[in-house]
């Protein structure tokens, strides 16, 4: 939206191989692409196409076998485990298909979780978490536990948690996969709104109407980008 072009993500000849017993399986066979800051990108492809592996690498949850990955101008593919944890904590917000909220834990504490690992004092954690819950429309549900919330509300809590650390990037792995289509569209509307406010979002989905919210769609097949 008129912002100067800045590649937030740049990968070059990124590969990932797994040992599966005796044989080696190539999950990612050299992917090169760029995603600019402020973009809204959907990643599609059949299962086994390498899109999940690609997302794990983007999310710094896994290290590539080869190639290079720059996140926000910094080469991260060779960082150690603690540095990657730190990077996830500060730069990336995750939204999962099954929400992955902590049971028996209030919405507010769930949202504040990333700040716990940033060593912030409790009062500040709670204040920032409360602001994000209000932002996703759950200001009145802060002390509710996940079991007391609907699926859509749980995913909103998860989005608030992704936002609470002021990340550069939100990675959403089939965020509507466990929701009915009406709730799914509400969640997508929320993500689109965040994107309009400047947040970079990369989304994995099977559904074309969900992918339609994105500005760009990247198709994966057999570990490569096909379109």
């Amino acid at each position: 939206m008129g912002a100067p072009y800045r590649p937030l993500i740049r990968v070059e000849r990124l590969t990932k191989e797994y040992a599966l017993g005796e044989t080696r399986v190539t999950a990612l066979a050299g992917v090169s692409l760029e995603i600019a800051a402020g973009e809204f990108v959907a990643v599609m492809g059949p299962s086994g196409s390498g899109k999940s592996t690609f997302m794990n690498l983007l999310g710094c949850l896994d290290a590539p076998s080869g190639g290079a990955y720059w996140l926000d101008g910094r080469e991260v593919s060779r960082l150690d485990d603690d540095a990657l944890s730190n990077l996830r904590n500060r730069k990336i917000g995750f939204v999962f298909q099954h929400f992955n909220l902590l049971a028996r834990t209030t919405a507010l504490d769930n949202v504040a979780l990333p700040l716990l690992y940033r060593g912030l004092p409790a009062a500040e954690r709670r204040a920032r978490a409360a602001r994000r819950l209000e932002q996703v429309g759950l200001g009145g549900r802060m002390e509710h536990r996940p079991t007391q919330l609907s699926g859509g509300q749980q995913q909103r809590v998860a989005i608030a948690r992704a936002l609470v650390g002021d990340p550069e990037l939100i990675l959403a792995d089939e965020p509507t996969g466990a929701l009915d289509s009406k709730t799914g569209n509400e969640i997508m509307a929320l993500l689109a709104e965040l994107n309009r406010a400047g947040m970079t979002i990369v989304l994995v989905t099977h559904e074309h109407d969900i992918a339609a919210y994105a500005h760009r769609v990247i198709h994966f097949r057999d570990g490569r980008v096909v379109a």
Partner: protein
Amino acid sequence: MNFAATLAVAFRALAANKLRSALTMLGIVIGVAAVIVMIAVGRGAQAQVERQIRSLGSNLLIVFSASPTFTGARAAAGATHTISEEDAHAIHRELTETIVAAAPALRGSGQVVAGNSNWSSTFWGVTPEYFEVREWRLAEGRAFDPSEINGAAKVAVLGRTVAWNLFGDESPIGQTVRIRTVPLTVVGVLATKGQNLMGQDQDDIVLMPISTARNRVLGATALAKSRSVGSINIKARDDVDIKVAEEQVRQLLRQRHRLQPGQEDDFTLRNMTEILQAREDSSRVMAMLLAAVASVSLLVGGIGIMNIMLVSVTERTREIGLRRAVGARGGDILRQFLVEATALSLIGGLVGVLLGSLGAALIGELAGWPIELSPFAALLAVSFSAGIGIFFGFYPARKAARLSPIEALRHE
């Protein structure tokens, strides 16, 4: 992640499975409680032994007439009289470097009669040194003076039990008691000593001058003819090794009795402190056995904690994955599980100390054993249980910390 937050997370996790947490702690609770009870009973017994050593007189040696194998047949110590008052004087005179006092004593028993009351007791003919050596204090009246010893005066000092049985609450001072028809005027009452280690009442005793016992009370027997005595109580100096004193007394007596090298002693020499310490040693062995049992219980408790922590890591794999995804380092996860395991064992330890203290008090009340609780032991038990938590919690915690974030997130 700061420590307070780690602690809060750990307690929330433990509270989520209250029954499981409680059962896991049980092993540690039982182990620690056993340790606390054991130490309380052990220390109580030890303190009692120490009190009894003090009541017997510290550094006490006793010489009995006759060795156990004297004349070839086994006779009870003191049955034949081979030691004399002169032996006692000689010990006192010649071993001034090591011996404070040597008190000869002549034993007898019989009915003690006062008015309509009578009481069967043991009496001892003694010298004034006897009071010092056996550490008898007087509750009332006085001990004997030398002129009474020389003159075979008809006086007696009663033990508390005898005084109470003959005179009740009335003061026996100035009253007359008869032993074997000899009337004796009571001049003193001994302070209470209570039971000895064998459970005998030490206060069931009558003391009289040794000359009175020999010449008047035991007069009809052969004993009266000689100066022989049944036993000599000897008090060694505090700064002298009791073994050294014992050896010196032995050599002196052998010399006086003209025993050849290789010939057996014609007396029996006992070191009372040693006897009591042997008892103390056996109670220490008992305590060590109990400690071994308790440490097995603590070990089993620790393994229980490890087991439950491994289950917990497996159950919470997705949670671990999520925490890793939002920025927890491997070290944060390690610390969290380690704190959980330690909290389990530490709480178990504290509960164990509490139950153990109550149990010890109860045992003391019901069995009438002396109990002495030790704050140091409690502290040690609690820190030891915390150590168990850290030790047995480490493997599960490291397993959790080493989980791959993706694998953990995908875990069903």
